[in-house]
Structures are given as C-alpha cells and as structure tokens.
C-alpha cells in the first residue's frame, strides 16, 4: 500500500485546481498549498474533500512549508509569479522554489514534478517551421526576454541542482532525488481562453500577429492529467527509470493554427475581441528594423516594449511544429481531450472540477 501524498503548490491557481481535481479523481491523497490568507473556498467544489489536506504557507518565506511536508510526499510545484515587476516575479518564482526545495530537503522528500515552461527556450535560435522539441537550446541572452522567462530560467537551474542531489535525512536518506521536469506550452482553458500567442491589446482593439502559426497549446485538463501522470511515473517502479531526470515538453496532439483557434472559440460562442491582424513576417520585419536601429544609434540601450523586441516576438509568434512524443514515451501520457472536445468543455457550463467524494483511494 502506497502512502504517497501529492503536494500541489499553486493549488488554487488557474492550473492548480485542475491538478488537485485530477489527483483526487485518481484516488490520491492531496496536499493543497494555499497562502495564509487564501480562503479554502478558492478551491471551489474541491474544498472539504475527505482526501484533501490544506497546507498553509507562503513560499516566499524561507519557512513557508517548514514542518508540513512528509518524506513520502510527491511535490508538484506549480506556483509561480506571472505578474508584477522583476522583484515580485523573482520572489514568487525563484525564491519560492528555493524555499520549497529547502523545505523538501528538511523533510527528506524524494520526489518532485518540476513545472517549467516553453518560455525558457530560445525560439530565435531555431529555424522557423522546424520541429520544436526538448532539444531546442535554452535562452542564452536573458536580457532580451521578459521577466517571466528570466525568472523561470533561474528556477530551472534550481530544479536541476535539486534533481542531481540526494536525500539527506529521514527514511529516504541517501536516495537520489527523483524528479521530472515538464515544460508545458501555452496552457489554455475556461479561465484563460484568449492568450498571448494571439497578439496584444492595442487600445480599444486587439492586435493579432500572424494567422497561420501552429499554437503550442495544452488544455488545462490535459496538463493536469499529464502532471499527475508524471507524479505516478516517479512512483512506478516500471516507469521511474525513464521518467527520473527527464525533461519533457507538454503540448496536445491536434494543435490548431491561430486562425483555427479563434474560429473555434467564435463558433462556441466566445466573444472574440475586435481585432486588427498583421501578418507575422511584416511585424517581425518591422521589429528587426527597429532592433537594428537601436543597435546602431543607441548601442542597444533603448528598452522597447516586448511586442517589438524580436526575441520576445519569436517566443510567441514564430511558427514551428510541436511534437509531443517525448512526453508520451517518458510519462506514458496521452492527451485525454482533443482540441474540439477541449473547446466544447471549456465553453460549457459543466463543473470541470467535479470529484466523487467517495473514500476509495489508491493509497
């Protein structure tokens, strides 16, 4: 009988709630990490589930989860800061991860599902139209990317150092840490249907950049499925050798183009914002000219908005193909919902977090 609990940071976030729901559905005991002032009601219909423990702590504090983790917990680290200035993001992403891993070390935790992001890849280093997989190089010039990418890049350094180390206390003392790093593409779902890979707000309208690029999407319920599957892979003697130390991208199977995505939302009744569409080559070309002028006239010191910075544009709009074979092989995962099903679910009234409160568990 397993005694493993899945501890999920960012449990009440956009993705976290779906991960909690999926873990509960599969019979796991779940530790949902909430900040001290966050209401349990933020977990919606999941609140009060008999296999749900609430762990209180702010990971920005060194002792955020001190004393609340157990050696057999599997930590799924989703929490990250997606807003604010660099300091805020650094604290919410990098410091939070440093503290979490230190708290995990103090508890003798062995297993970690480390959530990273596509944002740390250097899309500018890869030829447009090529296959975009785990072999794409990571950012080499962080200053040309946004604060989210910079902080997530540092976070992954912490992940890798932890993954290479061993447990130093408790019943798992001496065992090498077991960790899998997952890099989801753009996560979309009911709460975030319109996203940054389509363009940017431009006054009262929306500036769409490009139409035909394939979107590296993963639907919320699918990413939740993948993360719980990753945790289970680390616990499965038959799969752990493949999963441990692996890094996998997470994207769905049938990825739509920008136009297809917008059309699908519109067909499902989503109120698509009034937009102006600029072809990708035109916008990218203009940004390139701006960058060259910046380099020539201002020695590159002019700080332009991200929407005209070539490297940041490439990270959002450059067209690629997105295989997901590594995730399927390493995790044994298959996207549960097709794009059409995902659109239907995301735009429906169904309770996507519904979980049977029965006490049957796999624990």
């Amino acid at each position, binding site marked *: 009988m397993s005694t493993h609990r899945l501890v999920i940071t960012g449990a009440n976030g956009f993705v976290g709630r779906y991960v909690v729901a999926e873990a509960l559905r599969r019979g796991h005991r779940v530790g949902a990490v909430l900040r001290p002032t966050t209401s349990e009601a933020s977990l919606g219909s999941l609140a009060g589930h008999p296999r749900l423990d609430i762990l209180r702590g*702010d990971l920005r504090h060194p002792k955020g989860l001190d004393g609340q983790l157990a050696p057999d917990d599997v930590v799924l680290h989703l929490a990250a800061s997606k807003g604010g200035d660099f300091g805020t993001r650094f604290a919410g992403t990098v410091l939070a991860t440093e503290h979490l891993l230190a708290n995990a070390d103090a508890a003798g935790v062995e297993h970690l599902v480390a959530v990273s992001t596509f944002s740390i890849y250097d899309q500018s280093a890869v030829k447009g139209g090529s296959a975009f997989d785990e072999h794409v190089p990571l950012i080499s010039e962080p200053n040309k990317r946004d604060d989210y990418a910079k902080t997530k890049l*540092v976070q992954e350094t912490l992940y890798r150092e932890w993954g290479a180390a061993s447990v130093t206390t408790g019943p798992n003392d001496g065992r090498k840490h077991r960790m899998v790093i997952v890099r989801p593409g753009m996560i979309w779902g009911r709460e975030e249907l319109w996203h940054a890979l389509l363009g940017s707000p431009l006054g009262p309208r929306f500036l769409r950049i490009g139409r035909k690029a394939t979107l590296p999407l993963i639907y919320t319920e699918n990413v939740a499925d993948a993360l719980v599957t990753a945790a289970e892979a680390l616990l499965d003697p038959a799969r752990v050798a493949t999963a441990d130390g692996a890094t996998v991208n997470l994207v769905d199977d049938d990825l739509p183009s920008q136009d297809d995505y917008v059309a699908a939302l519109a067909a499902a009744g989503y109120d698509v914002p009034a937009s102006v569409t600029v072809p990708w080559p035109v916008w990218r070309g203009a940004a390139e000219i701006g960058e060259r002028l910046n380099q020539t006239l201002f020695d590159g010191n*002019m700080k332009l908005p991200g929407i005209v910075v070539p490297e940041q544009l490439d990270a959002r709009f450059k067209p690629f193909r997105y295989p997901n074979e590594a995730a399927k092989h390493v995790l044994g995962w298959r996207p549960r919902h097709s794009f059409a099903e995902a659109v239907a679910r995301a735009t429906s009234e169904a309770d996507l977090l519904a979980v049977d409160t029965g006490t049957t568990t796999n624990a």
Partner: protein
Amino acid sequence: MTSSNAPLRAAVIGSGAISAQHLGFLRDSPRADLVGVCDLSPITARYAAEFYDAKQTFTDAAEMIAVTRPDIVHVLTPPASHVGLSLSCLDAGAHVLVEKPAAPTLPELHTLLDKAASADRQVIENHNYRFNDGVVALADAVADGSLGIVREVEIRMALDIRSPGGRFADENLPNGIHKMPAGVVHDFITHLTYLLDHFTPEVAWDRIGAGWSNHGGGDLFTVDDLDATLIGQGPDGAVHGKLRFSALTGPEQFQVTVRGSNGFGVTELFQPYVELNIPRAGGGQLSPIANHLANGRIRFGEGFRNVGRKLMQRSPYHGLHQLLDETYAALAAGRPAPVTPAQMIRTASIIDAILDPEVRV
C-alpha cells in the same frame, strides 16, 4: 588601504529590489571593484553576482567582510537591520553606504556616526534625490538668486502603495516596514525630509504639526498618509515647510516646490520637468506671460524627452548613480562624502520631531 587611483573594493549586503541600482553602478563604474555580494538567499546572491559581475557570493555578511576585506559596503537590507550591519562593517574598517533610513531613530543614528568617527570611516545614507537633475536645477535657482530668499518648501509624494499585489499591501508576507515608527511612510520619509533640508539647511524648526493617518484602514497598514507642517526661523526670517505623503491621490508623483521672495520653482522627479516662475525680462506685468510661455515650452519638450528617458532607461534613480560616483571619488581621495553626517542628523532630527506624539494633529 586602496590608493586613490585604484577602484574601491565594494561589497553589497542584500540583493533585493533596490540593489539593482547599486549593483548596476558597481558593475559599470571604473571607481568600483565589486568583490562580493551577500544575501540570505543563495540563489539571489548568485543571480546578482552573475548579472553584475561580482567576484564572490555569500550568505553570511560577516564571512563576506572577512574574506573580501572591502573598502566600502553597501547595506541594502530591510531598515531594521541597517544599524547592526553597518556597525559590523565599520568594525571591520569599511566605509558604509546604507539605504535610507540609516537608523530608525536619531539616537541610533548618533551611535552609528560616533562609531564611524572613532573608526575614521564614513557612513553615507542614501540621499539619492538630492542629486537628481530637477533638484539640482532648483538648487541652482536658489543659489543664483532667481527665487530670492527661500520662504516655503513643499515636498509631496503620492504613491499607490495600497493596491493589491503591491509589496506593501501583501497580507501573506507583511512587509517589515509596517513595524517602523512611521509605518510604511518610513520607507519614504527620509526622501521627503532630506529634500526639505536640502533647501533649508540653516532653518531651526520650532513649530511643527504632523497628521499621521491610516485613511485606507485595516490592520496591516498602521499609517498610509502624512501631512506635516513645519515653521521655523532661518537666517533671513521665517520659513515654512510642508511634507506630504499620500496613498490615495493620483497620479503617482514626487514633486518638490521651492517658493522664494522673488519666485518659485517646481520639479517633478518621477516624470521629470522643472518650471521656474521668476521675474522675466519685460517687467512685472509681462513676467507672468513670459513665465507661461517659457514653462509651456518646457513642459511640451519634457513630454517628448520623458518618452526618450523611458526608452533609454534613465530612471528617477539617476541621482543615485551621481551620488555613488561622487561618493566613491571622495572616499578614494580621502575627502568627505557628498552626504554628510550633519545632513543625516538634521534629516533624522526632523523625522523624530514629526513623529513626536506631542506634535500630532
């Protein structure tokens, strides 16, 4: 000890938000050799060291000082730790450049400055806005007599510090500044006060009234508003001072107004401009028109220049770089730094005075 031709060996304690401004100078200035960065968080210290080319990283300040033997240490930690860390640095023979407030109270500042004097070292509190272009321009207008005798100085700061998600409004991880005597305003009161002192250094403030309020309510903020009036005597007669901090008014601004017997000048430090309303050629009746035209031209031009400043990343912290440059030059030459103990004591004295329960309104 380092000779005046060699860069000063510099170390930094605390790699939080403000450190970027200090570290940027230390990386780029030929006057400084960044020998160490210390932070309780190893990854924060590592990141700072990598980004700003520091030679070593530490998580223990005493160890860093012992290993790197710096000429000067920048103390950039939360205010409650400033005095203790600064004293340790002085003990080790280093000058100290400390973020504001150097000490939470005047007696503690005296302890710090006495220690510095006995160690033949200098403590420099960050008075960065004294060195901003706009403040320098107003000081020049005072010095050349354009404004006449200074009669009133108003320092006004408006900051949206209560918005959810901001570093002061975080209920989950309350900012330590709320425990300072002036609450969150203590993070800014030094700026307001040293700028008042900048234009009124010889004034003895003998009538003071200070309204400290928590207009936004709640338990996290003890204070979010200051409205202080000071009246004093200078060498040329009466002077009025006004210190105003508001969390409820917008847009965010940091405005310095100096009114003299001949005219007045205004500068805004967040969105920089300088206006002078002074006697102009043409005499009394034409001066208002001439001032309108001159200041209109200035405001029009500054609108475009501020776009340029934003794009070129010339921030309101440019005064800090000037302060650091002058400080490093002075220390290397064995001269007094541009922020003096006397200025720091006057600043802390005003803060203590307006915090006195006896003057609260």
